[in-house]
């Protein structure tokens, strides 16, 4: 990799390892990960379940500190969570005591009233929740709640969005719809996105690059570049080639 692209990278992981201590025993989870993510890039992370994908997000999000190695964003080491990079959780992430509006406005308390209202209206529209502004999450469907969580994250203008299997708990049809929505939002706003998923199609359809992790302790098994322009047709030859390649890589990963 040339020096120019190195300085351009938004997020850098260098020799990142993570070891958990549990009942006096140590459990290695991540083993020497190295990764550079460019600004505006869409990265998907796949790997066997329990391999440490979520741990990786929690590290880059600042919720955990790595046992070894360094994580930098824009050249600055990550110390703790930061509103410039928001993590979207698999479920239960929205606050049930706030309405749709209240949730989207949650991170906007420092803005003036008018600005806040404008920002909320913009993101209500973006995630297509018009008419539900005053609805509480208990009256929303699972897909709507996840859209709401994405809207709340985007509303604070983060540079990076971490998505931890955001559509994993949804039914397959809703998941397909959400995939389209996420792509549309990404194309409109061009944030850097790291998406952890167990859905191969989700990864191939959305990401610029797919990072394949091995089983625990996870290493980066492979990084696959998806060289197809959007929109990607699920039945095009190149798509199927890449998908099969990814599947075989994960197959290998599973047997290791």
């Amino acid at each position, binding site marked *: 990799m040339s020096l120019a692209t190195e300085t351009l990278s938004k997020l850098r992981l260098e020799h990142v390892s993570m070891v958990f201590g549990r009942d006096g025993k140590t459990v290695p989870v991540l083993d020497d990960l190295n990764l550079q993510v460019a600004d505006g890039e869409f990265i998907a992370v796949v790997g066997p379940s329990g391999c440490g994908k979520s741990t990786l997000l929690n590290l880059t*999000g600042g*919720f955990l500190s790595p046992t070894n190695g360094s994580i930098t964003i824009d050249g600055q080491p990550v110390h*703790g*969570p*930061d*509103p410039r990079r*928001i*993590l979207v*959780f698999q*479920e*239960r*992430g929205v*606050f*049930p*005591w*706030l309405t749709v509006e209240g949730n989207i406005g*949650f*991170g906007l*308390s420092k803005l003036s009233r008018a600005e806040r209202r404008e920002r909320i209206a913009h993101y209500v529209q973006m995630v297509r929740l018009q008419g539900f502004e005053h609805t*509480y*999450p*208990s009256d929303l469907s699972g897909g709507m709640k996840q859209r709401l969580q994405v809207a709340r994250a985007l509303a*604070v203008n983060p540079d990076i969005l971490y998505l931890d299997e955001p559509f994993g708990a949804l039914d397959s049809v809703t998941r397909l719809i959400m995939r389209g929505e996420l792509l549309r939002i990404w194309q409109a706003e061009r944030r850097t996105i790291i998406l952890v998923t167990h859905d191969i199609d989700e990864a191939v359809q959305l990401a610029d690059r797919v990072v394949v992790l091995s089983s625990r302790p996870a290493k980066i098994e492979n990084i696959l570049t998806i060289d197809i322009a959007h929109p990607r047709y699920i039945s095009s030859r190149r798509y199927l080639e890449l998908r099969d390649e990814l599947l075989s890589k994960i197959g290998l990963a599973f047997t290791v």
Partner: protein
Amino acid sequence: MSTLLRPIAFIVALLVLWQVAVSRHPDQLLPGPWAVVKGIGELLQHGLLLKYVVASLFRVTWGFALAAVLAIPLGLTLGWYQRGEMAVYPLVQIFRPISPLAWIPLAILWFGVGDFAAIFLIFVGCFFPLILTAMSAVRNVPAVYINVGRNFGMSKGEFVYRVLYPAVTPQLIVGSRITMGIAWLVVVAAEMIAVNSGLGFLIIDARNAGNRYDLVIAGMVIIGTIGLLLDLGMRSLERVKSFRWSYSEE
């Protein structure tokens, strides 16, 4: 409407049965419902009813409020810092099963006969359940809410006000409703011994001053009615939309 009609019909039927039974055995000391109604009228006439109700509510309010103001923040703090909870929990569990009435001698020793003793007893009755409620409420806050709060970069105060407090509120309301019931039980007992006003005093005084069982039962009816109203009031809090969710529904 029929949901209200049925219990009312049932109560009326019981009252009729009671009246019939009493009029068939006029030599019994137990008064009939009509005598009780007249007793309530007599209390109203003398201005005693309102005075005693206010006295009892005053003690319950103070005892409960003092306990809530101390126990809830303390319990939330202890619950947040797990080590604090581990240190305090066994002690709380030792105090909790002691009936507040067991404190009567100490209450009178420390505060003499009067409002303070009664308020202290209600305080003791409410403090331990409330601190346990608050501790478990914090512990049960899903980690994801705490992480979201941290992610959006807020000060400690903001975090408490905008995440922790709303997250524990539904559980605190349920705990407070149950504790309010305890307070109302304790005040009656406390007033029988520690003071000379209030609904508990009314009952014990009516018996001592000439076996006025109509007034005894009148007092019981009023206590029950007010207890019901207190519970309904607390329940209406549970229906507030932003409190009405619970973790299990999510």
